[in-house]
């Protein structure tokens, strides 16, 4: 009995074992996970890490350069901005904004995608036509322009930004899920299950959904990264969260007034670096997930 059990384990390793087996071989994935985890921990422990509050300081301390530059002080590692606020602390708090938008935006888009994509594939007919029309319509307008215009109308708040990204981000998920459901539904094992009398919900839950979960997680990871990117862009244009909220895009934008003289560059440089680090982490993680879930590469 024990012997058979061992054989079974060797032949069919759990997903966790598969992931573990992949991990050490993939340098990019490892770096991605470390960077992403680093930013998540920063966001969670922001209050412990940040030496100041995100709106703490006065204009008397404005525009202090980074610690290693002449005139800098170790009290403000990355210097201060025009308000005299500590840039390092604001970057730490800014990770909360970026991650919130990324996680909830991509989460909402994925949820809408699963619901509407499955509905389109299962009901077909008019439902499919309407949902597909919505998808094509949203995808026909350049994404950035679409988001900018909607954000202008709804006004600056974190909730609105998440809502906008969730809704406008859903078509990519809908398209993917719809296509996958159509494809998987025709596979032999699903046909076999159906001929054995499995109901649609059971087919969906037991046979179709587990097979598209990998693609869904991969897509959600990449979408999360692009939403963080677009949120920074909206902030940069002054269309995301209110200006005193420490979002990285807002902070980069605050450095714009020095473009003419080229002075005080640190105000824009460090927050931008934070965007780059988080995007790099999530993208590397996404590449790795794609390889893990891609059956051809297994």
């Amino acid at each position, binding site marked *: 009995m024990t012997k058979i059990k061992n054989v079974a384990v060797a032949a069919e390793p759990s997903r966790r074992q598969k992931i573990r087996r992949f991990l050490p071989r993939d340098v990019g994935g490892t770096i991605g996970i470390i960077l992403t985890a680093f930013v998540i921990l920063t966001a969670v422990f922001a209050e412990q890490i940040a030496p100041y509050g995100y709106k703490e300081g006065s204009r008397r301390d404005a525009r202090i350069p980074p610690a290693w530059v002449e005139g800098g002080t170790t009290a403000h590692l990355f210097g201060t901005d025009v308000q005299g606020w500590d840039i390092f602390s604001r970057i730490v708090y800014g990770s909360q904004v970026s991650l919130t938008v990324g996680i909830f935006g991509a989460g909402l888009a994925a949820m809408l995608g699963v619901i509407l994509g499955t509905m389109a594939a299962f009901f077909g007919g008019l439902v499919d036509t309407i949902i597909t029309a919505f998808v094509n319509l949203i995808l026909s*307008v350049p994404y950035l322009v679409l988001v*900018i215009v909607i954000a202008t109308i709804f006004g600056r708040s974190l909730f609105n930004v998440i809502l906008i990204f969730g809704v406008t981000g859903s078509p990519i998920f809908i398209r993917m899920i719809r296509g996958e459901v159509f494809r998987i539904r025709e596979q032999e094992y699903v046909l076999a299950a159906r001929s054995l009398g499995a109901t649609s919900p059971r087919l969906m839950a037991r046979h179709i959904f587990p097979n598209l979960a990998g693609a869904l997680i991969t897509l959600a990871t990449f979408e999360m990264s692009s939403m963080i990117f677009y949120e*920074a862009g909206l902030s940069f*244009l002054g269309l995301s969260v209110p200006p005193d909220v420490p979002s990285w895009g807002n902070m*980069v934008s605050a450095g714009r007034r020095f473009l003419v003289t080229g002075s005080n560059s640190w105000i*824009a440089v460090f927050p*931008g670096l934070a965007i780059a680090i988080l995007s790099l982490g999530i993208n*590397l993680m996404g590449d790795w997930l794609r390889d893990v879930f891609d059956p051809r590469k297994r």
Partner: protein
Amino acid sequence: MAQYFIRRLLQSFILLIGVSIIVFFMIRLTGDPVSLMISRDATMEQRQAFAEANGFNRPMSTQFVDYVGKLLQGDLGNSLQYRVPATQLIAQRLPPTFELAFLSLILALVIGIPLGAVGGIYPNSWMDVLSRFIGLLGQTIPSFWLAMLLVFFVAVPIDFLPTFGRRGIESLILPTFALAFGGVSQLVRLTRATVMEVMGENYIRTAAAKGLNPTYIGIHYVLRNAALPIISVTGVQFTYLLGGSVYIESIFSWPGLGTLLEGAITNRDFPLVQAITFFIALFAISVNFLTDLIYMLVDPRIRSATS
């Protein structure tokens, strides 16, 4: 083929109707377009006068019919801040934006396609590592931040390249580079993926089995087959660059469509915002349609399947 053409044309037309409906309802989503456009401390009389002058007090259906009627005549409404037809403003700002987007597209194609192709043909070579790296950079470094870095650490120190405005050829260098950056990395990724897919085909394996050298296979077999998807991506790229130019134009004070849109947003000039959105969507839909046509003309498989 004619059938395919007509069907595609019809699809584009339906999309356009959809976009115009969205654009119409967009500013009415909050329920009160007047308070969107007028300053917060306007009096009740001013609000009423504004609603009357712009027709917001009429029934929604009348407004919509009026809007569609004007649209069919090519009238996208008047700008509130400039008090001239929006189409006139768009026509003025279009050449600078096209100039920038077109140059960036060429730069992106010239760098992106060879790099992605080499990466795909010789996977895991040092060129492939470079192409993957560049492919990743574009997703990692925001274009607006890159543009600012260029100004801070290149333009200002060497004091040669203009950092704002549109005065002569040298003022194009920095904006073009910053805008092309994201495009290069997208093209590298897509070209590399397409080429790798073609590399997995049976006819490539046959060619390799015949003993042809990899470079010959790359040029004669892979690139010819990978060319089509790359063409269609190029069309999408152009509209993508048009969107990205909002940031770049804003940073370099480039007098194009992007800065026009940004100004309209800051001044709550919603008729102009509507007009620009509609125009860009119209443009994107047309480009998609044209790319599909080229695709159909070039690809013998589609040509024979639809004739």
